[in-house]
């Protein structure tokens, strides 16, 4: 009468713990199937046969653990993801620039994946600052995954990736055709500084930002960790600065530091009172 119950894999539990320790990201049981799919290429590349063998290697070789973490992270992204947001951010940047005069705006793309988000921002700014390129906003782009960052720094995209979200006009203006791939022009890439950074634990970039984009990153963090990260981000935004979350994300019930910006639809402003007590950059 006893059906053999599939063993809740110990390997899976070890991997979930590894990912959560390194990035805060949780693997719910409903996404457990992704683990094996995501790690299959890693198992093959290392000449192994089973998940258990990989877990054993990761346990004693930190560089293998890092490869495993990178493979488990979801790097899904596209150019101009939720396109209208980029118009709103461009408008907000223009308004802010008019207020602050000649200081360069500082914009942070937190969880930038392979670079589609900061590159989209860089294109918007280059177009909007056409007549005063010297004042272009500074873009800092960070991610916890070195593999994603290496891709981002290279500016290279496959034919499939380049066609997701990017108009053909922008593609031929800002990218070179390099064999089967497309590579972002230096003029675009040089406006972006890429850095490895775990939002949960690493020191955040110094100084304060005018605009922070952190989209589709906080979704799978435990609520407590998400709150902590939102607080840390709040500490990195200047008074009156803006936070941009993903289409399905909100700060409501997650943080008291932000309120919906009345002016820019879907964006959040660092809450005024707390902002007053923060010295500006």
């Amino acid at each position, binding site marked *: 009468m006893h059906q053999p119950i599939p063993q809740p894999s110990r390997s899976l539990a070890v991997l979930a713990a590894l990912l959560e320790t390194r990035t805060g990201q949780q693997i719910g049981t409903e996404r457990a199937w992704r683990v094996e799919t995501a790690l299959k290429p890693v198992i093959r590349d290392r000449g192994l046969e089973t998940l258990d063998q990989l877990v054993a290697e990761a346990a004693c070789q930190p560089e293998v653990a890092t490869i495993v973490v990178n493979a488990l992270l979801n790097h899904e992204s596209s150019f101009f993801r939720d396109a209208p947001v980029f118009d709103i951010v461009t408008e907000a940047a223009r308004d802010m620039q008019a207020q602050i005069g000649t200081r360069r705006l500082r914009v942070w793309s937190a969880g930038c994946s392979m670079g589609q988000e900061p590159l989209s921002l860089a294109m918007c700014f280059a177009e909007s600052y056409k007549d005063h390129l010297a004042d272009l906003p500074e873009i800092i782009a960070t991610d916890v995954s070195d593999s994603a960052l290496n891709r981002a720094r290279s500016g290279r995209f496959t034919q*499939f990736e380049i066609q997701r*979200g990017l108009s*053909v006009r922008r*593609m031929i203006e800002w990218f070179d*055709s390099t064999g089967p791939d497309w590579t972002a022009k230096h003029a675009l890439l040089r406006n972006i500084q890429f850095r490895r950074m775990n939002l949960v634990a690493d020191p955040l970039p110094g100084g304060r930002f005018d605009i922070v984009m952190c989209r589709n990153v906080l979704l799978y963090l435990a609520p407590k960790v998400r709150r902590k990260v939102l607080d840390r981000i709040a500490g990195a935004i200047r008074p009156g600065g803006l936070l941009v979350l993903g289409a399905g994300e909100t700060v409501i019930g997650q943080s008291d530091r932000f309120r919906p910006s009345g002016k820019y639809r879907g964006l959040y402003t660092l809450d005024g009172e707390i902002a007053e007590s923060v010295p500006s950059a």
Partner: protein
Amino acid sequence: MKTCLVVDDSKVIRKVARHILETLNFKVSEAGDGREALDSCLESTPDVVLLDWNMPVMSGMDFLRALRDTTLDRRPKVVFCTTENGMAHIRAAIEAGADEYVMKPFDRETLESKLQIVGMA
């Protein structure tokens, strides 16, 4: 319901494109070359034309130029969909008035994304 005319000399490609477009809620019609496509547009102008480049009888480029010279009161959005993936071809297509450009092979995501960019999905 939006309408899309799929112009390609390959029956297989037309079928794949039709399938994707129907899941995106388009009403789809087909043409096997530029000449057929032009006749179809004159009869009833679609919202979007998905256009191959190299075809017998009349190429995609010749279709696009001929379309420009017609007196249709409504111009369809034209999205090239071709294996001509070089910069020179892309530039020529844009200069001739194409709205978007899909480099084959394409998948559902690419097509949906490009249709969104021209305001059709």
